[in-house]
């Protein structure tokens, strides 16, 4: 059995419950204000859609000081008001425990997965604790594909504001799609349904103490599922409205953890993605409908100011990561960023794609300390976001989605560029170690065309 990060009382609670068909996990840290709504939605969803199944709601807390755990345990659900007239045949347990280990969402998930494993759950779902738009239907949409259609991972599919989730739209979605050939629209959505087979795979891994323990967990889960050929689908959950992010949470750190996890997994699964061409859609469940979204205010000038500062001061670091032609193009952009009023700032899809691929290769070849490398991506990322905001200012959601699709196609068509640069160093390594795994894979290229 892997390292347990559950406190002793959590294990005791699991032993006393014995077995649960469904486990729904909620990671939390100081979410007393929003978590009651989430717990109510989960409980109502379990009673309404799975009355014959035994279920446990597990709150994995990071040491909240605002009474989050008490809120979880004391929240009540008025079933009559929800028009749930049927009486559930099995009880829905609710437990709340602090997890041990590195503070972060990943560690919280780890405890939830261990709890699900102990309880021999047939399906598990995880949802964020700051959600304002969660409804009981979310539980049905996340759990049913696992229970009744034998999917291993149910990824969320939301409607989001065009300026929301820009790490997803600019980097993670296009990159994951181009690498592994599956169009999972929200790979770091945060709300997932999981099969016991996939949970066992996660638990058995040894990289929990890395960026996975923090913001890297979502992309880690998705990538492992897709790279190891687990069955994946998506469920349309409507709008994702959630609390403002912790202002102390540093954007650079978040970007570092998410993108660092993607790059690390690229090294681990290079045999899985090097052969992939194109991409294929992923099954989507749920009833798609339009929703109203919170407006989002963005400060383009501040983003461009940080980009300009990066151009002035980070050239040395960027020169270790970017190809000379790419670096020259970035430096030319500095002038455009200085005169944003005269001429709209524009960072095109092809250049952004090359930047991301160059950073991935620099990360692999360790040309510079990886922390510095990933953090130095922030000004470039902000430039891309600023460009995106300027370009999509007047566009409606569908047209914005078309632009994101264009970016994804740029990532897919530039994949040979990534492969060449990625293998540059591998060729040297292969010559040194002709019997290594990577050398073998290189000598036996077997491209797989993904059916479109």
């Amino acid at each position, binding site marked *: 059995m892997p390292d347990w990060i559950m406190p002793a009382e959590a294990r005791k609670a699991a032993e006393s419950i014995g077995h649960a068909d469904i486990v729904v996990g909620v990671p939390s840290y100081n979410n007393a204000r929003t978590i009651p709504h989430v717990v109510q939605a989960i409980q109502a969803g379990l009673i309404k859609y799975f009355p014959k199944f035994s279920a446990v709601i597990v709150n994995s807390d990071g040491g909240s000081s605002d009474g989050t755990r008490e809120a979880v345990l004391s929240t009540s659900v008025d079933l009559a008001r929800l028009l749930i007239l049927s009486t559930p045949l099995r009880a829905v347990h609710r437990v709340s425990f602090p997890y041990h280990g590195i503070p972060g969402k990943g560690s919280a998930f780890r405890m939830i997965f261990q709890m699900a494993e102990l309880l021999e759950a047939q399906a598990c779902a995880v949802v964020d604790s700051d959600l304002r738009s969660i409804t009981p239907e979310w539980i049905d949409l996340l759990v049913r594909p696992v229970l009744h259609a034998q999917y291993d991972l149910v990824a969320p599919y939301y409607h989001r504001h065009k300026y929301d989730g820009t790490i997803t739209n600019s980097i993670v979605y296009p990159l994951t799609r181009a690498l592994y050939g599956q169009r999972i629209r929200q790979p770091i959505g945060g709300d997932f349904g999981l099969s016991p087979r996939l949970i066992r795979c996660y638990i058995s891994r040894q990289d929990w103490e890395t960026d996975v323990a923090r913001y890297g967990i979502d992309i880690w889960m998705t990538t492992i599922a897709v790279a190891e050929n687990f069955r994946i689908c998506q469920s349309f959950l409507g709008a994702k409205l959630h609390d403002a992010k912790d202002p102390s949470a540093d954007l650079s750190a978040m970007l570092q953890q998410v993108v660092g996890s993607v790059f690390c997994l690229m090294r681990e699964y290079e045999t899985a993605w090097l052969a992939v061409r194109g991409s294929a859609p992923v099954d989507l469940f749920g009833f798609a409908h339009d929703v109203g979204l919170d407006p989002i205010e963005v400060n383009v000038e501040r983003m461009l100011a940080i980009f300009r*500062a990066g151009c002035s001061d980070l050239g040395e*670091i960027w020169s270790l990561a970017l190809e000379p032609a790419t670096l020259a193009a970035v430096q030319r952009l500095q002038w455009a960023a200085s005169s944003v009023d005269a001429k709209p700032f524009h960072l095109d899809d092809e250049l952004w794609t090359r930047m991301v691929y160059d950073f991935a290769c620099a990360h692999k070849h360790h040309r510079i300390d990886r922390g510095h490398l990933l*953090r130095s991506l922030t000004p470039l990322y902000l430039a891309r976001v600023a460009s995106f905001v300027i370009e999509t200012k007047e566009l409606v959601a569908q047209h914005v989605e078309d632009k994101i699709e264009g970016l994804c196609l740029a990532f897919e068509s530039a994949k040979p560029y990534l492969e060449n640069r990625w293998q540059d160093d591998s060729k040297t390594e292969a010559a040194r170690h002709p019997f290594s795994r990577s050398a073998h894979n290189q000598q036996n290229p077997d491209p797989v065309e993904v059916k479109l």
Partner: protein
Amino acid sequence: MIRVVQEIFEKTVARLYQHLVTYVPPLIVAVVILLAALLLATVMRWLIVKATKGATLDRFFRDSGLASAIGRSGQLRATSLVAGVVYWAILGIGFLTAIDVFDTTITSRIVEATVFAVPKLLTAGVIVLAGFWLSQYLGRSALVWAVNEGVPYARRIAIAVKVIILFVAVVVAADTLNFAERVFFAAFVIFAGAAAFAASLAGGLTLKSLLERSIAPRRHESVEQHERSLWNHL
């Protein structure tokens, strides 16, 4: 007159002969030792570069981040570095052995002093090297942080961090070598005092800012709310 000249000449020749007899054989031996050391050093350097091809060491340097921290291009070759160290170490030992052949008071003192100083020199060298590596690493960290946070004068902050760390490393190294201890120590005290003063000033200003915020909470909240909304979408 001729006899006196002849005597002087004979004495000079005898003295020269004596010098030749005394110093030429050791000189020849010393030259031979030096040449042998040079040959050995060259062969060793060649062997290290060719035999290992640096795979393991280079990978260690690359993966530990030392290559990028020390070499500005990030392409520091560990093999070349080790081969260089071995080369110069053999040459140094060869030189000391060669001058020891003369067996004079001066050469013996030089050899003795060098041998005794080697451990301290090595320690000081390691301290300076570590300080250099740390200064490069933390300087770069400070630079990236300052740029990402929109802090003005990012490059100057990074340079200041580098200089501070290098200075501390040099002070410690000088102390190890017992070299101008007082001068370095005095400079260090002045420097540390200045740093403490700057830190107190920064702390005071931060406290003032915090007090202002606590006095005007509503205003602070609106500013923070605004700041949050700017970055929420990320």
